[in-house]
């Protein structure tokens, strides 16, 4: 705690406790950034932005094998450990522009990390301003936030966390010098909270580089024993296979666009594109089948009748009935009737009218690897 003594003369009101809004991702870095602030007596609240590409939660809810793992939302869990409030905000709609037209381009895959950071800090800045306005309207000092903190570390991520990108994020987001990165602040010019003396710069850190050792040591010093596995893995856009599926979607539709269902479906099943004008989304297990059932009012589908097997959504249109039969024979390959002479399945239009198809499953060797979008 900050033990600095402040002299208050009669008639003066004591200085209020300064408040920070923290971007909480659920990883170790943002957790540590909050801890560093709390250690200085700063009151912190968290904000977590939902982009639609977050890994955790979704696959847990869908796939059987993932359901067995303990399920938790890491941002909520972190907030609870830190004893802070957390605002979870759905930015998935506005975030589309970031993914579709990143001003600073993509990282190794479809991850627009630099634009993403600018966008998130900008959103937090708007919250900070809204909170300020609200505090003014209510004349209730103490309700607003004074500054924003993030768990960024210089050199940690190849694209978004470099020394030159730090001021860029601060400037482009509109946060300017109300953006403080407690873990690497000593390598950056002093920010407003430091200059104003709300925060003691000496107690901030100068972590740089990709090694996680300094963070681990700091976690130990704070007595944090459990935390989510750091670095990567929290956003599907950094995943190679997922990024390829997203690129394929744009190519097939001849336009860069998506809605929430599209990006959710890219997380589920095998995706095969045997022809440019249609893609087959084939469930891999019961949990996925159950989930894809919910989309049958939107897509036409194949469902096995004679044997156990996957449910398949058809994204696109067949050009002829022959093509539908051919596609059904591909799908049959992934059913329990793969060795049978003939299998039966329904081909159902989105709103229910179905047709029975009888096909011979396609031999495995006839299914080229290239059909598997983003790998098998």
């Amino acid at each position, binding site marked *: 705690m900050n033990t600095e003594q402040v002299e208050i003369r009669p008639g003066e009101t004591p200085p209020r406790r300064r408040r920070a809004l923290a971007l909480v991702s659920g990883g170790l870095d943002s957790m540590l950034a909050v801890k560093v602030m709390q250690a200085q007596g700063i009151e912190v609240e968290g904000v977590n932005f939902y982009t639609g590409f977050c890994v955790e939660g979704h696959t847990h809810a869908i796939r059987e094998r993932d359901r067995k793992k303990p399920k938790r*939302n890491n941002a909520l869990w972190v907030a609870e450990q830190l004893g802070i409030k957390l*605002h979870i905000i759905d930015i998935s709609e506005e975030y589309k522009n970031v993914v579709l037209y990143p001003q600073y381009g993509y990282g190794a895959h479809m991850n627009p990390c630099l634009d993403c950071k600018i966008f998130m800090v900008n959103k937090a800045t708007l919250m900070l301003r809204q909170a300020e306005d609200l505090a003014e309207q209510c004349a209730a000092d103490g309700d607003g936030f004074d500054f924003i903190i993030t768990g960024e570390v210089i050199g940690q991520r190849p694209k978004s966390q470099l020394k030159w990108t730090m001021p860029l994020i601060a400037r482009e987001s509109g946060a300017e010098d109300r953006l403080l990165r407690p873990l690497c602040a000593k390598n950056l010019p002093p920010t407003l909270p430091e200059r104003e003396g709300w925060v003691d710069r000496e107690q901030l850190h100068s972590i740089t580089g990709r090694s996680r050792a300094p963070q681990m040591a700091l976690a130990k010093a704070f007595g944090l024993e459990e935390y989510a596995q750091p670095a990567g893995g929290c956003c599907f856009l950094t995943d190679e296979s997922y990024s390829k599926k997203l690129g394929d979607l744009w190519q097939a539709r001849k336009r860069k666009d998506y809605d929430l269902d599209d990006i959710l479906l890219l997380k589920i099943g095998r995706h095969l594109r045997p022809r440019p004008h249609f893609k087959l989304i084939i469930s891999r297990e019961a949990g996925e089948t159950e989930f894809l059932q919910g989309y049958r009012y939107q897509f036409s589908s194949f469902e096995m009748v004679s044997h156990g097997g996957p449910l398949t959504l058809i994204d696109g249109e067949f050009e002829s009935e022959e093509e539908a039969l051919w596609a059904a024979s591909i799908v049959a390959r992934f059913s329990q009737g793969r060795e049978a002479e003939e299998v039966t399945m329904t081909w159902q239009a989105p709103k229910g009218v179905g047709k029975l198809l009888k096909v011979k499953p396609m031999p495995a060797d006839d299914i080229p690897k290239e059909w598997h979008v983003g790998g098998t």
Partner: protein
Amino acid sequence: MSVAPDASIPELDVRRLLCPIPVIRTQDRVKTMVPGALLDVLATDPGVLNDLPAWCRINGHRVVATDRRDGTIVVRVEVGGAAS
């Protein structure tokens, strides 16, 4: 603990939505409610069984009971004094 159906308690239907969307929708709904009010959240993602109680604990609300009705998970939330 079972949740007896009660027509006077408003429901929030977040079935088929995946976490954290059920939490986000609950959060937005609770903002419009008064302290002490009850809300039944109807969900299918089992994640709500962990995430909603965690969200409630953080923000000063309370999960009164949870139940399953015909494949739907029902979480009854009581709005706390300081609605977030």
